[in-house]
């Protein structure tokens, strides 16, 4: 507005329009332009805030691999009761380091038959008491047991997942092949979020438990041994903040 008045004073031809309707119209149009521009700026800042928070709008979806335990905006994840348009913001599993004990046991079990032949020579006992094809069948069966042991441990880890979507938290527990537990809570019901990182190993490898206190039927959600617990707490807190601001 000020610019228009100054320009009108500088140019005498424009003085005619000072009291006229034309200038009023121009001012109205000018104000309307400002009003139109303001929401655009607001939208832009809102967009960047969201991007900074958890990349909700900036969807660069990353694919999961066989040992993924922490992934923002995961690609190709489908879960039961997924609402249309519901986006998975964070995908979590227990940190891969928790698999080390069974991996070591698995390797020992794989290598064990290789040490049987030297052991039989040293301690002088005969391991080939059966015909060759029987031995081969037993060795094959043994390796099937080992493969099953490793596979069951792997899928127990693989299917125990935690999902954080834009509206809820989902916990899928899977253990001993017969225990399946799925629980979920809405973001709006979350009251408090905290995390524990107890022990040297957990601090070195940066994993721990995240405790989510809710007002729902499930009092406390525990995300056990997940990587980057501090980061996860920040993400959940920002989600709670957004929901409350809305």
């Amino acid at each position: 507005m000020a610019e228009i008045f100054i320009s009108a004073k500088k140019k005498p031809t424009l003085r005619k329009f000072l009291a006229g309707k034309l200038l009023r119209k121009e001012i109205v149009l000018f104000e309307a332009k400002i009003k139109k521009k303001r929401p655009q700026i607001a939208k832009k800042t809102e967009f960047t805030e969201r991007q900074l928070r958890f990349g909700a709008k900036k969807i660069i979806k990353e694919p999961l691999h066989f040992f993924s335990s922490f992934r923002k905006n995961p690609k190709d994840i489908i879960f039961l009761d997924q609402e249309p348009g519901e986006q998975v913001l964070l995908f979590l599993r227990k940190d891969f380091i928790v698999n080390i004990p069974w991996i070591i046991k698995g390797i020992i079990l794989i290598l064990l038959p290789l040490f049987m032949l030297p052991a039989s020579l040293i301690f002088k006992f005969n391991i080939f008491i059966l015909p060759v094809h029987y031995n081969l069948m037993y060795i094959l069966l043994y390796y099937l047991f080992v493969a099953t042991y490793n596979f069951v441990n792997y899928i127990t880890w693989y299917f125990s997942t935690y999902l954080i979507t834009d509206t809820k938290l989902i916990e899928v527990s899977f253990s001993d092949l017969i225990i399946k537990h799925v629980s979920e809570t809405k973001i709006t019901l979350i009251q408090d979020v905290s995390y524990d990182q107890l022990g040297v190993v957990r601090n070195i490898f940066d994993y721990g438990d995240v405790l989510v206190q809710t007002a729902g039927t499930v009092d406390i959600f525990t995300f056990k041994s997940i990587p980057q617990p501090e980061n996860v707490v920040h993400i959940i807190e920002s989600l709670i903040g957004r929901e409350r601001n809305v």
Partner: protein
Amino acid sequence: MFNLLPIFDKNIVLFLSKVIFVILDASLTVYLFIVYKQVASMNNIIEDVNIAIVIKSFAFILLMITISLFLAIFFIP
């Protein structure tokens, strides 16, 4: 060959080893069948489209090998 079991006849030892093998293999088959069913049901709850098929296939392959081993033992003389 049968130094450790001198009191048993060769045929009895072979028969017993077959029986033990069948029991072990049958239990592994049942276990793997449960694993396969569980993998399929877990894929309904949560599914990573690219990896789920690989895991399910691996469970199926393990099951098939175990069943073929179960059948193969009856053809061994």
